[in-house]
């Protein structure tokens, strides 16, 4: 470890070039493990997926036949893929916005240190520990009209019909969205609650003097103060929604008639069921670009309206 002795720095100052090289070598043992892993499992695959998207592949994934952008053209001409994109966007809207609102409400409820709050917190945070496989399996039962307790309760409380959740176009997507929102609620609430606790109390005190009510304080003090966290949640849950897979695989397999065939599921189907790795890679590239563009857009549009203290 002699090379990394800190005391080496206090010795006679080497010339600039030597020092640069030395510092670089010194840092490599720290950086390399992560760098190598990132190179192999993040950067190389990005290049490879673009490469594969330009080829027809055989069932072993070997690029066999160069087709250029043909698969992209094919995808955008395919009503199924266009539907899949629309379903994905619809799904993202259905999960991100309600998810943020719900998490905000829950965080506001949990904000005060009142008696028993710890129990409520544990309960409301609990979804963070549940797996998509477990929750979706529960959903399989809860959304099945022939045994559903959920339907029974909805019938009794709100007089709803016995919904056949997973076999209608819109309700199947709602079912997947319900599972997704539920799964995210723990994480989002934790983050927002932390943000609420960090709002300086003086802000509220001055607001109180002005004779504002709760909703006004919420509108003019609380929400602007926690806007960085709201923004963070928006970005994270949007990316998460684009990545939805387990719920779809367990609950609907993309059906009925493609109503829940989100892009990631479609990639999975094409790659690991139909063994069309090339086509699936083209879809993956498109997914990547969409997520990238939307994230950058969010940064540009939303972040301007976010106030950092």
């Amino acid at each position, binding site marked *: 470890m002699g090379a990394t002795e800190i005391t080496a720095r206090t010795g006679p100052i080497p010339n600039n070039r030597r020092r640069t090289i030395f510092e670089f070598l010194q840092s490599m043992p720290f950086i390399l493990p992560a760098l190598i892993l990132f190179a192999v499992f993040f950067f190389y695959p990005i290049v490879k997926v673009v490469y594969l998207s330009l080829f*027809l592949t*055989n*069932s*072993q994934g070997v690029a*066999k*036949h160069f087709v250029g952008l043909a698969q992209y053209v094919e995808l955008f001409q395919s009503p199924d893929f266009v539907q899949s994109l629309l379903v994905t966007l619809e799904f993202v809207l259905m999960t991100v916005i309600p998810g943020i609102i719900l998490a905000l409400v829950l965080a506001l409820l949990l904000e005060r*240190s009142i008696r028993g*709050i*710890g129990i409520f*917190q544990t309960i409301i945070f609990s979804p963070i520990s549940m797996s998509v496989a477990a929750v979706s399996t529960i959903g399989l039962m809860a959304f*099945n*009209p*022939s*045994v559903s307790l959920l339907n029974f309760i909805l019938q009794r409380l709100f007089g709803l*019909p*016995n919904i*056949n959740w*997973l*076999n*209608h*176009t819109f309700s199947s997507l709602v079912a997947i969205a319900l599972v997704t929102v539920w799964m995210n609620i723990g994480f989002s609430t934790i983050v927002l609650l*932390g943000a609420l*606790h*960090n709002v300086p*109390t003086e802000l509220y005190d001055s607001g109180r003097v002005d004779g504002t009510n709760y909703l006004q304080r919420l509108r003019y003090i609380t929400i602007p103060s926690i806007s960085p966290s709201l923004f963070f949640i928006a970005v994270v849950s949007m990316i998460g929604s684009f990545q939805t897979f387990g719920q779809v695989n367990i609950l*609907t*397999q993309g*059906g*009925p*008639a*493609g*109503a829940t065939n989100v892009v990631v599921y479609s990639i999975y*189907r094409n790659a*690991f*069921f*139909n*063994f*069309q790795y090339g086509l699936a890679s083209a879809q993956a590239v498109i997914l990547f670009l969409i997520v990238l563009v939307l994230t950058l857009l969010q940064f540009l549009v939303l972040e301007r309206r976010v106030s950092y203290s």
Partner: protein
Amino acid sequence: MGEHQKKTTSRSRKVVGIGVVSTLGLTALLAGCGGGSNGTATNGSGGSGSNNGVVQLTLWHAMGGATGQALDQIINDFNASQNKIKVTPVYEGQYDDEFNKWKATQGKGGGPNIMQVYDIGTKFMIDSGEIVPMQNFIDQSHYDTSQLEPNILGYYSVNGKLYSMPFNSSMPVLYYNKEDFQKAGITTPPKTYDEVLADAKKLTIKDSSGKVTQYGIGIATYGWFFEQMIATQGADYVNNNNGRTGTATQAIFNGPAGLTTLNWWKSLYDAGVDLNLGSTTSLTQNAFLAGKVAMFIDSSGIYANMVNGAKGKFDVGVSELPRPAGATGGTIIGGGSFWIPKDQSTADQQAAWQFIQFASSPAEQAKWAEATGYFPITKAAYNEPSYQAYLKKYPEFQNAIDELHGVKLTYATQGGLIGVFSQARQTVQDMIQSVLLNKQTPQQALDSAASQVTQDIKNYNLTVQ
């Protein structure tokens, strides 16, 4: 949570106050680090090897529940019957999953020595070049195939060669709840599409508020049923005589037979008498057992499961698959068969062949048929006293057997041969849903599904040549 409001926490307190949490975390960490060093070398269950001269064989299958237990029984019988070969069954999930796993391991090792594949995987298996045709073993050991059911062999024979040994063979039948039939005053089960619609209306029960409490029928939107329904009308799924006289290049299920079937299916759904629970058949089976549907269509292979599940609640009736009035075709004898992969030593292959002969023997086939509801693949099984007793006990099941023996072998009833059948089935399932949910008219849906499947066939044929 008071701590959160404090803006400054002294760092030393943080260090001291690690508590239970990080201890727990660090324990996991340490345990994990320990595991990391030796965790990577774990061997899979696949592959074979011999131990003390005993040949170890792995068998992959897709038989869950009571059916899986019955298969385990056959394997135990085999292992006990001799001491040179030991077969270990591995349940790999449902057919699709199991088949995909095989595709993924092809030629990379870790695959099974005996592979159960569903009927529609036949063409892919042959094209893969990764298997040894069963005919080779049959010819070498002069195995007598004359006792095997010709209607079952028909599916797995291609160009006069038997590629795999049928094992679990079944056909779709109509199951019904006898109590419900009695209550509705129906004496004979419906045979035609029109009769099904009429009876399903009688069997549908609504409560005072108009909510349906019992549906007349439940048909899972499973692609297999559609394949069967057009075969009963004598229609082929793909061209070149269902791919039996040459490689198929085009899907042709979008003819009148397909249209009749979809129109009927939709009429049931629109009349509010069909409970659509998607393509997972077990959900509809469940609804039947829960008394939510009075009739449903499914494989004869689940007969035992249904009879057991309904025990103490109602009697289960079995009738042949309904068809349009006057249709003269038959059903396709589906199910699964055993394949011997090439990727293993000759000794292992021979051992696998030993097991397959054992599993095809009349005594084992009789036991298998009794425990499940699959058809014995050998006619001699009907002479086994235990099976005769079984048929006496469950006379209902004779209807299914009559259906099997009544089938005339044609290209339609032999079943289609394409390498992308699992994809095609998925496409057809989407097609059925899009008709039921009014997204497309039946003819539109048929045409677009057929052209999708044709495209898939073309792509597949390109990569195989």
